């Protein structure tokens, strides 16, 4: 295994002729060994423990913040009248946006037969699932009476009440719950062959039992494979429209309202692009340390990073177009409210945040990612991905807060300041996400083993063909 070291220009050429998405020298067996060993044989490493401890501490902080919230009320947050939605909704939109990259990679790219997705789709899907879990928590917690959240569902009720279906929040309930269900199913179905591999390779009884149960009797027969292919294609077919629809519906939360800065037709595409933008940034944020720590540079190659950076470039441009159009329409529409809103964003009390947002989402990524050198530098990409995520979080903050804090009647204008509970809940949700992710990389194969085998096979075939 001398191919672990990345080669110079010769290597580059070689990758193009073979597979740029897999290091050389891998056999079907060695791929399985390498990926399953992370879960089964290498044991729990000190670095994992350290990371997990930090994540779990943050998660406990989240629980503390939620306990206080339930005991005292949403008044512990900085929300007020006029800014009745604050961090909770910002975080909700941010997390749900992040989730989108996973779905895009696993479903959309599957349908597009983009084989390079193989090595990143598993943990991207896991990321989706955990991000949706974090996202789904916020709209419920932000309710004044969270214990009554189920009133948003249409369920037979002795009082004969029913949700008010004109409200986008009801659409949200359906969009997010569908998304969560499909993502979970898709992820789980994709895991089944690998769970069987783990079952077969596990040495400990408990591991054999658990993985065996989860593998649901997978034996790898041709019938199984055929059914598996059909199911995953169907699920991919179901999940693909969700990439577009979920964030569209989330954007309806804003566009249906008449608040200047929300009431805009550009929101659905702009939100979807923003979601993919932040999602790919998150995939990069997760992938870069993982490949380094677990020496997976051969599976998640620089070409992968390069591709994802290109997606960042493309979606970043769409997002930039969204900002431009938003500004243009504010003036072109002739609406005094919109005009005031956009000027207030740029020059009002929150102006630094707006310009940091532009810096993070447009200036920095566009100024760096056009250079192949940056796209192929893991460290630079890692930094840019964090910048983009911060920018996308700020974008939601700007949309939610600066639109509300000065809307129609100036006497009601006011400021919104997050409280320590807002921050604790926000960072706590990151803790929840990381906790789940740490558990995932410890107990499940973070790269799809069988698909990597397939890749090895196809790569070999391709070599044989030439």
């Amino acid at each position, binding site marked *: 295994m001398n191919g672990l070291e990345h080669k110079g220009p010769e290597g580059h050429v070689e990758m193009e002729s073979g597979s740029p998405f897999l290091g050389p020298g891998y056999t079907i067996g060695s791929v399985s060994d390498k990926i399953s060993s992370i879960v089964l044989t290498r044991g729990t490493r000190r670095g994992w423990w350290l990371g997990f401890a930090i994540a779990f501490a943050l998660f406990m902080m989240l*629980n*503390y913040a*939620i*306990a*206080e919230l*339930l*005991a*005292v*009320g*949403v*008044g*512990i947050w*900085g*929300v*007020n*009248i*006029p*800014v*009745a*939605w604050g961090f909770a909704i910002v975080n909700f939109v941010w997390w749900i946006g992040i989730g989108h990259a996973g779905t895009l990679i696993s479903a959309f790219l599957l349908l597009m037969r983009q084989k390079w997705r193989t090595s990143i789709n598993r943990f991207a899907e896991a990321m989706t699932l955990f991000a949706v879990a974090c996202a789904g928590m916020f*709209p419920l*917690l*932000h*309710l*004044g*009476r*969270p*214990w*009554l*959240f189920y*009133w*948003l569902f249409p369920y037979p009720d002795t009082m004969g*009440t*029913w*949700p*008010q279906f*004109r*409200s*986008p*929040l*009801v659409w949200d*309930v359906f969009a997010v719950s569908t998304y969560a269900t499909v993502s979970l199913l898709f992820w789980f179905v994709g895991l089944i062959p690998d769970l069987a591999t783990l079952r077969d390779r596990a040495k400990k009884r408990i591991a054999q039992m658990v993985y065996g149960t989860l593998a649901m009797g997978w034996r790898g027969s041709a019938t199984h494979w055929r059914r598996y292919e059909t199911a995953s294609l169907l699920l991919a077919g179901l999940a693909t429209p969700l990439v577009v629809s979920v964030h569209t519906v989330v954007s309806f*939360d804003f566009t*249906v*309202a*008449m*608040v200047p800065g929300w009431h805009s037709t550009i929101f659905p595409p702009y939100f979807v692009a923003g979601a993919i933008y932040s999602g790919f940034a998150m995939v990069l944020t997760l992938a870069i340390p993982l490949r380094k720590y677990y020496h997976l540079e051969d599976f998640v190659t620089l070409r992968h990073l390069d591709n994802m950076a290109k997606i960042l470039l493309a979606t970043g441009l769409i997002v930039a177009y969204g900002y431009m159009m938003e500004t243009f329409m504010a003036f072109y529409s002739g609406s*005094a*409210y919109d005009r*005031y809103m956009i000027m207030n964003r740029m020059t009002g009390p929150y102006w630094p945040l707006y310009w940091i947002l532009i810096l993070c989402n447009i200036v920095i990524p566009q100024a760096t990612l056009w250079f192949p050198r940056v796209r192929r530098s893991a460290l630079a990409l890692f930094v840019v991905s964090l910048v983009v995520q911060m920018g996308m979080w700020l974008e939601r903050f700007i949309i939610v807060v600066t639109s*509300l804090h000065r*809307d*129609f*009647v*100036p*006497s*009601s*204008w*006011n*400021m919104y300041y997050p409280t320590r509970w807002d921050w604790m809940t926000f960072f706590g949700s990151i803790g929840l996400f990381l906790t789940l992710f740490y558990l995932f990389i410890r107990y499940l194969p973070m790269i799809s083993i069988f698909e990597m085998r397939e890749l090895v096979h196809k790569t070999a075939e391709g070599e044989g063909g030439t």
Partner: protein
Amino acid sequence: MSERNHNPLDLVQIRAKLDSDAGQRFWRGLEELAGTQNCADSLDHEFPRDPAKEPREPGALSRRDVLKLMSASAAFAGLTACTKLPTEKIVPYVTPPEEIIPGKPLYYASTMPFGGFGAGVVVESHMGRPTKIEGNPDHPASLGAADLFAQASVLTLYDPDRSKVVISSGRIGSWSDFLAVADQARQKHLANKGAGLRILTETISSPTLADQLRTVLAQFPMAKWHQYEPCGRDTVREGARLAFGEYVNTYYRLDRADVILSLDANFLCYGPGAVRYARDFSDRRRITGPDSTMNRLYVVESMLTSTGATADHRLRLRSSAVEALARSVAIGLGVQGIALVGARPNVPADWIPALLRDLQAHRGASLVIAGEQQPPAVHGLAHAINDALGNVGKTVVYTAPVEAAPCDQMQSLRDLVADIEAGHVETLVILGSNPLYTAPPDLDFGSKLLKVPLRIHLGLYDNETAQYCHWHIPEAHYLESWGDARAYDGTASIIQPLIAPLYDGKSAHELVALLLGHSGALPHDIVRDYWLGQKLVKEEAFEAAWESWLEKGVIPGTAFPPKPLNSGVAAAHISPGAQPNNSGSLEIGFRPDPSIWDGRFANNGWLQELPKPFTKLTWDNVALVSPRTAERQKLANEDVVELRYAGRSVRAPVFVMPGHADDSVTVHLGFGRRRAGAIGTGVGFDAYAIRPSNTPWIGTGLEISKTGERYHLVTTQVHHAIRQDGHEVEEESVTAEKRGLMRVATLAEFRQNPSFAADPEEEKSRDLTLYPNYPYNGYAWGISIDLNSCIGCNACVIACQSENNISVVGKTEVDAARDMQWLRVDTYYHGDLDDPSAYNEVVMCMQCENAPCELVCPVGATVHSPEGLNEMIYNRCVGTRYCSNNCPYKVRRFNFKLYSDWTTPSLYGLRNPNVTVRSRGVMEKCTYCIQRINAKKIQAELEDRQVRDGEIVTACQQTCPTQAIVFGNINDPNSRVAKLKGQSRDYSLLLDLNTRPRTTYLAKLRNPNPEIKE
């Protein structure tokens, strides 16, 4: 229990117990068998520190609670409800008392004594609990309206911090012990003819109490009755004495005045006749069409007040310069013997001549009013000017004094202090007042008071003065006991109690009766006997007359007749006021606070949280300065300064008020209470600390220095000054004007273009819809608010709070922009930063026909009624707050925490039982007083008829002194509201959003003198 503890064990009893149990039980010891308290105690002590039983701070979380909640929340604890409903037992009436139908309120007329004067009120009573105060339409000072103090006084009744027991030297005493002490004192003073007996009261207009006090003085000839009202009318009284040589009561007929000049007088919101004046004044400004006329108001004032904002011409001038201006006006009108003293005030050149011409053109229909803070000389000048203009008997009416014993109260207090100092005072009875807090510091009342051998205090609160007295007797609230009072024109009315004293409080009548030896006298009998003795009606008809007085709330024919003043005004005697017009130095003006007055309402949460006019400050008082003075002194909002005046100093936060006179600082009294109760103690700074007895209102020579500290102030409307280029005042107001939220024209402009307020572009949008309009076949409720009448007095805000059980949230929550008042008074400025016009706009729920809030609620908790109201269903609300985001008027209020006080039992009685007390996590907003609408609709249905126009009045409408708010059925073209909405001045807020508000406004008009250029 104590007996048991000390008894040895009763073995016989134990044996009997064992026998009766037939040996079937085990026992742990003899004590257990005997069932002694000791044993139970020791069992408790086995685990002495059970954290569950530990007392803890209300609202604080114990460790266990946190753990419980954490474990629950980790498992997604949203499923469990956390707000506990209080357990309450109800008991049905087996034999219901007469007249009381549960759920139906009864209304009683009564009188609220305030500053010595009576305000006629009607009190709503539910099942024997007074819940709301309204004005009495039959009372001349009210005409159905009530100011914010009268309305908020019902909260004081239920205030849990009211004193509840007799306090003797700091410990709980008993009334019977006090009776013994009082009797002893009485015997002593009977022997020495009352030498050393002193009674200190506030201003008294009560005929009965005055009669009792006179009897005391007759029985004890050497006793003295002192009066001191911290925010009293000394200047008014002394001014009358300057002019007429005797005490005279003056009241105004604003309904007859065409041109009014106010000399630093906030007469629309301040003083005993203010509610009536506001009504009369606004009646002369009601516009029905281009032919309507308006009076014209000139105001000269230092601090921007509601009256100043209403004025057609407002001249900002230091209070100390008003006298010079009054003198030039008097000289200009040819009043003889007036000398011009002091520097000429800095007034625009055309101002005074134009004013003089206007006044002279309206002889007999003009009016000059001097402010209560102005020195007696200005009042004398006002009398002289009114005399010269032939206004006496027309717009100005003189009568005998309303106060039972008019006197110079500051002098009266000085005399008392001097007597104490000289050791002449043995017994001091303080009735109701709180001199320890309110007395000017140079009198050093506190330390002098301690020299009095027997000090007795009667008061609603165990306050600063009570703490320094040997005996404190809880006073009965006016809703708890009998009494009487006179209004601004002398009309007497009876104070009728609505409820038995909650805490065995005693009225002043009872305490004075004690001095007279009538220890068992009941206040009812005292008051009734007095009026029986007045022989207003024949003795056999008295019973019927008494009942009709109680029912009407007024004793007819008791208004004082106009007093012929044959001497005329002795203008020559009006010597210049005490202060030289030292224009170089800073001036200080003391005023009672617009919300908590002289401090007596400091513990009233409604009033503390009420945004003060223009500044919109809550929960604090400040040193108000003009923008220019702030610039000159390098001050900004929230800077803490030290105010040094007359050798004393106090630290106060600065607040910049556009429209304030330059080189002048206004401070409001009533804050910085040291012993007010849980709400009022320590709020704000104590301006009394620098208030000298010789210049209690206005003085010059104030020194101001920055301390470098900052103090956080909280307002409900944030004003950002943006530019000072002479045009744009501040961002909010400029934007509001651009958005047409406040529409103003002059009367002349209105006559030229009667529909100046309408925007044809806006009207077009009304029917641009694909959907057919919803047909409102029955009633369609709407409100019209006449901005030309509104003076921004805040009465409606308190009315709404009282009617709808609106919570008080406290300073930190107001700071977080979570104030709960459903109805707000917005302020916008226009013009230059130093001297802007200020406009008030009452904003409540617009009840939009195309309501943005309804569309976005996911659970249908806010829905449209067939009568066009947006109804809130509290039980259904889950609290997404989407409705508030989508409300362009931001009239919705959210219970971010549990704001309603569910634990203080005394407040249960206060609540309107027809309005839900909202819980945490629920949205609320103005309902147009739906409970009132439904009550009248039910009644109309029972009587098989339509609701009559004017039958339903919302709480804000009911109390509005200027009748600016009119509610009604807009489907009925003959209804008042429909006619008002049909006026050309009618406009909606943000109509271009096509929300179609049911609340619309009538644009404001101003009637400036064309000779004065703005």
